[in-house]
């Protein structure tokens, strides 16, 4: 056994004993956990979900179960949140699974794959389909138990300094775009760049990059991207919905009393609903402000969407051929999506369609 593994195993054993004893003696032991978020405090939408979870768990347990929140970088860098949970450095984190596609591409199925599910469909797949069941089986390899913890809704396609009229306009384009979607941009001849949120503005201003995607109107406006790139494209086909998760170290989760597991589950359920509601309430206000400041809204052309879909299917097929977990969960998701959209076009889409067209009348 390697030294690192040994230390980890010993640490976990000790924690399990410490918790197990009061769990028998009393069902409401005093527990203090640390949660590392992958987001800065300034993003009240994303960072706020962890605060919501912590608040409701504390209330439900009469402050006996306390979860202290740390912003990205305070304990570990934002993009190492999952590593910190895996090794037991912290008990849990709040992050986007797809930040960790470097470990295994299957991680992107926690958050979003290009041309995947929309927000409600994703929740349906997670909770009522096989989504979380399959992902939590996969997560065991990394000591992770996942609870759905928020969703941004469909994101925007990002900020471009020049108009993008046809697929060939992606040739040589230096585009700040994360993880999995970057592979698709690469297939189109683009040069994907990884840049932390706080550094995007400068890179775009200096021309180090030609385009950048972040989230949607509310979060993007905070970064000021509209001041350095005029064209705002939609939709973000790589994030029809982007789900966040609370990842809990599996040993810590198993050692919790049942009542505390129930509190975490319910509080995560509330945080999930709350984040989407918050984004949905704030995005229209921000979009209006952006339009008033001269932003030019552009849809990706049909030819571009088609080229991206083709490239996306190729990238996913390649990943599925090389990785059984990815293949299994990706197929579950696409089967679910294809059945969903048959229904979606009937009720939801036709209602939204009429409402969009007649909005000005009522």
């Amino acid at each position, binding site marked *: 056994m390697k030294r690192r593994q040994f230390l980890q195993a010993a640490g976990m054993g000790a924690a399990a004993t410490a918790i197990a004893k009061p769990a028998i003696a009393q069902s409401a032991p005093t527990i203090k956990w640390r949660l590392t978020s992958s987001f800065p405090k300034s993003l009240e939408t994303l960072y706020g979900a962890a605060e919501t979870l912590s608040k409701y768990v504390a209330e439900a347990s009469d402050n006996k179960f306390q979860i202290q929140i740390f912003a990205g970088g305070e304990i570990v860098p934002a993009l190492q949140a999952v590593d910190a949970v895996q090794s037991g450095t912290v008990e849990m984190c709040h992050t986007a699974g797809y930040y960790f596609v470097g470990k295994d591409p299957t991680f992107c199925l926690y958050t979003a794959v290009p041309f995947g599910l929309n927000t409600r469909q994703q929740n349906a797949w997670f909770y009522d389909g096989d989504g979380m069941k399959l992902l939590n089986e996969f997560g065991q390899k990394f000591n992770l138990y996942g609870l759905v913890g928020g969703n941004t809704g469909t994101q925007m396609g990002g900020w471009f300094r020049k108009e993008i009229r046809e697929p060939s306009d992606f040739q040589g384009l230096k585009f700040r775009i994360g993880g999995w979607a970057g592979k698709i941009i690469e297939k189109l001849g683009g040069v994907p760049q990884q840049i932390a949120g706080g550094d995007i503005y400068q890179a775009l201003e200096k021309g180090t990059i030609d385009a950048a995607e972040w989230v949607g109107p509310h979060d993007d406006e905070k970064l000021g991207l509209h001041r350095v790139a005029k064209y705002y494209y939609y939709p973000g*086909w790589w994030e029809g919905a982007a789900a966040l998760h609370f990842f809990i170290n599996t040993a810590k989760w198993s050692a919790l009393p049942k009542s505390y597991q129930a509190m975490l589950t319910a509080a995560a359920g509330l945080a999930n609903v709350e984040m989407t509601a918050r984004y949905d309430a*704030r995005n229209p206000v921000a979009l209006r402000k952006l339009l008033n400041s001269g932003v030019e809204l552009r849809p990706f052309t049909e030819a571009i969407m088609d080229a991206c879909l083709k490239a996306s299917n190729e990238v996913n097929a390649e990943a599925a051929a090389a990785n059984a977990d990815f293949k299994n969960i990706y197929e579950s998701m696409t089967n679910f999506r294809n059945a969903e959209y048959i229904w979606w076009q009937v009720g939801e*889409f036709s209602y939204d369609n009429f409402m969009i067209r007649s909005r000005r009348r009522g």
Partner: protein
Amino acid sequence: MKRRQFLTAAGAGLTATALAKPAIAQSSPVLKWRLTSSYPKSLDTLYGGAEVFAKAVAEATDNKFQIRVSASGEIVPGLQALDAVQNGNVEMCHTASYYYVGKDPTFAFGTAVPFGLNARMQNAWMFFGGGMDLMNALYKEYNVYGIPCGNTGCQMGGWFRKEIKEPADLNGLKMRIGGYAGLVMAKLGVVPQQFAGSDLYAALEKGTIDAAEWAGPYDDERLGLSKVAPYYYFPGWWEGGAMLHNFINLKSWEQLTPTYKSILRTASEMTNGWMLAKYDASNPPALKRLLAQGTQMRPFPPAVMDASLKAALEMYDEVSKTNPAFKAAWESTLAFRNDQYLWWQVAEYSYDNYLIRTRPRG
């Protein structure tokens, strides 16, 4: 003081005393509540929501706070659930606010109004658009506190024995349609009828009514409506997203410890997300089965949609003239909705649009 009032007051006093003591001594007193649902056990979506909620509360409190769920008719009829809570017969109910438009048409805004918000927008309005405060100001007058707890998503337009090709086809049509939407339908010449879900099949089969709307494919299939009316219309423009509520007797709510209040909230919102996910996952396979059995789907023709919108707008104006609470709720909903659809058409709608068109290629 009337005898009934006296009894209620005395009863409430007793409960207060009984609760107050353990509330000081311990934050987790043993508590048994009754919840009356407006739904039959056969609907695992709507009735199931109350069960999911009660189970989450029991688990988080180590079974100290037990909520016994009763189906429609066991304690009171389904449409008297709110009255039972108002009088303190039971501590809480799970129901749709719009069943009580007879008391005040403003109740409709807690659930859905014609050409109103879709399911996500309804959550956004409730939690971040002032909806909760507006609605609870009304609910307070009826001695209850309301917490959102579930949503069906956009409903279907219902089952028709004959095709509806133009607005005139609605004239004289006997249709089972509830509450406020019935008033709007009446403007189009429809004769609205109120039936409990379990009686719909017989009424439609016998020809007592010509048409009936209930919810969507999954629930409608269980009522067997496809066997007695071939035409299935969409969208249900009176229910772009129908929200359910937990209503809690105000005194019962105020006497709860902060811990239990918090647990009721998280369990309600977890259930809110659960129910929509359950509908979104269950409707597509149900629709497929209905179509395989010969159901004929029809969109309401544009002229019918336009006439319905016109009638709805007239009705909003008329009721607003005499009811200030209704006026305030409508103006709040309208402003919120118009902002929402300005944004919705950009990312969500264009994403769904592309996915609907390309689904077979994915």
